[in-house]
């Protein structure tokens, strides 16, 4: 037997070798690009964040943790963190909640609901920069349609409300130019753009909820719609929620287009909308302060990776809360 098997074994091992060689041949381009485009830049940013390098300079000095020190001590960067986290903390829950709400309503309406689905998805498809410019027009303090509409309230009962009363007396807010409103307007547009995406993900999640679960709940005496949602729908949507929250967080962290369109210089009134992506762009690219830009990049990567790892951990534990 062994005599007959030997050549077969040799042939299979040759076969295995050949397959391994082809496999490496097929993966090499992807591997090379992964290293060059994704991993090398992370290392480069890590190294440069300890230097005072500028493009065009032939040499640079090692400055240790000075760049990180600055990030944590200067008030500009404090504003950067406040703006970024305010944006994330507002946009993520609101767009997830609206996405879920819209999905539940659309789903309960059957085929007619599809019209709303189409409409709510439009902002996801549209070029955000173009839509930001439209919003800017609409929010224009004098000729913008929003303040023109608000002015219609003047002279009516609405003036009794403080917001309208003050607006009619002293003019309605400047919106994008007003440091008290700027970040909230930015958040609003973030929600406007993103909740349709969450809705669609939830709609996909809802198709996976088994009908029997509702029947079973009814058998057990669950009558009200709220109880049905709390006991059946919400737990079944657990994995979808984990995913929707993570992807919303990552997208919210990366907000840039609207900030650059509204405030090309300096990140808004009193730096109230100076988000991290804009800071990387302004410091690193425009002002050529690559050390500090790289330090922000590294912090940014830490946040994003941390979020994704939490998500993977939750998914692996198959959390149904």
């Amino acid at each position: 037997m062994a005599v007959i098997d030997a050549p077969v074994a040799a042939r299979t091992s040759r076969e295995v070798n050949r397959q391994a060689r082809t496999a490496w041949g097929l993966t090499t381009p992807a591997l090379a690009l992964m290293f060059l485009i994704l991993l090398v830049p992370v290392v480069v940013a890590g190294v440069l964040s300890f230097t005072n390098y500028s493009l065009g300079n032939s040499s640079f000095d090692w400055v240790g943790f000075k760049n990180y020190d600055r990030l944590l001590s200067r008030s500009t960067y404090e504003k950067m963190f406040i703006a970024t986290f305010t944006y994330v903390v507002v946009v993520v829950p609101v767009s997830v909640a609206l996405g879920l709400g819209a999905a539940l309503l659309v789903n309960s309406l059957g085929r007619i609901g599809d019209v709303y689905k189409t409409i709510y998805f439009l902002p996801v498809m549209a070029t955000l920069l173009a839509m930001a410019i439209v919003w800017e027009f609409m929010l224009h303090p004098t000729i913008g349609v929003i303040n023109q509409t608000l002015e219609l309230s003047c002279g009516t009962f609405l003036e009794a409300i403080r917001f309208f009363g003050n607006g009619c007396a002293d003019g309605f807010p400047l919106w994008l130019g007003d440091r008290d409103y700027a970040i909230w307007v930015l958040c609003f547009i973030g929600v406007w753009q993103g909740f349709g995406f969450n809705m669609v993900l939830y709609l996909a999640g809802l198709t996976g909820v088994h009908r029997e679960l509702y029947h079973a709940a009814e058998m057990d005496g669950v009558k009200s719609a709220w109880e049905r949602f709390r006991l059946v729908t919400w737990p079944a949507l657990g994995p979808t929620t984990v995913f929707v929250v993570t992807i919303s967080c990552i997208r919210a962290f990366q907000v840039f287009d609207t900030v650059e369109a509204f405030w090309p210089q300096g990140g808004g009134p009193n730096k109230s909308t100076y988000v991290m992506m804009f800071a990387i762009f302004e410091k690193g690219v425009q002002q050529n302060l690559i050390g500090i830009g790289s330090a922000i990049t590294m912090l940014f990567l830490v946040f994003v990776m941390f979020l994704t790892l939490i998500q993977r951990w939750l998914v692996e534990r198959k959390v149904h809360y």
Partner: protein
Amino acid sequence: MTRDIWKHLILVIGAIIVLAPFYMMLSYSFKSPGEIDRGTGGFFGRQEMMVDERCVQLRDPNRDEIAAAAPQYPGKSDREIRDAIMEEAAVACAMRPVVFNYTKAFIEAPLLRYLLNGVIVTVSIFVIQVLVALPAAYALAKLKFWGREAVFGLVLFCLLIPVHAIALPLYIILAKVGLTNTYAALVVPWTISVFGIFLMRQFFMTVPDDLIDAARMDGMTEFAIVWRVMLPTAVPALLAFAIFSIVAHWNDYFWPRIVVTGSRDLFTPPLGLREFKGDADGSFFGPMMATATIIVTPLIVAFLVAQRRFIEGITLTGMK
């Protein structure tokens, strides 16, 4: 039934807020500057003839032109001749606001060039992504080789790195190599789609081994199997991935903003619109909105036509 009415009411209010900017964009792109300033004219504007000031200025005759035109206006002073010519110019330059806005959009900036650049960039990104990702995904899904787990682990790790986040070091590297302000700079960072590899691998896992064995029996090389057997089976997944990729890169503003600084020749549509905004005075709101409409329209129309596929494509990221 009454419950449904409440649902519709809530959803309609939502729809109005979502659609408002689209409505305003279209409406502004139809209106004359005056109507935009005053906020009058309804959706389409009144479409009264308006005079294009810049066009009239261009026809303002100089001395030689007045002298040349003199025989046509016998017995008139130079001043009267100029007035007559300007009057003719005003007539010739009169047009409907909607025509004015949309022609200006194409004339004031090389919008066609921008659109072409957008197509070139998005299409090359997608093609290269597929050329790189498909073989790797096939190897990871169907070939046994030493180190496969490590490669797949690397893919999973790289999924953690958003390309936008490492834009600064990428920009520095490209600047060092001297590639900024080229098509290559716009395309290169996106050539590797780790997500694409992951997605195609998951898809190939579901393809039966018999299909591949049969192809091997027929004497096909592994390379041929990737393109002649696996590619055709992967068409639905590839279509979804194409939509995902094209929507992301047609709309991308951050990366082009970083690597294209000088020449308008390389501007993608969002960059072109941004520049338009930079030097626009009040009277150019109309043409700018026309530009915005032109840039947004292709994807919106495609979406409305093939809605299901688009939603599938965009929500691909939802696959685990």
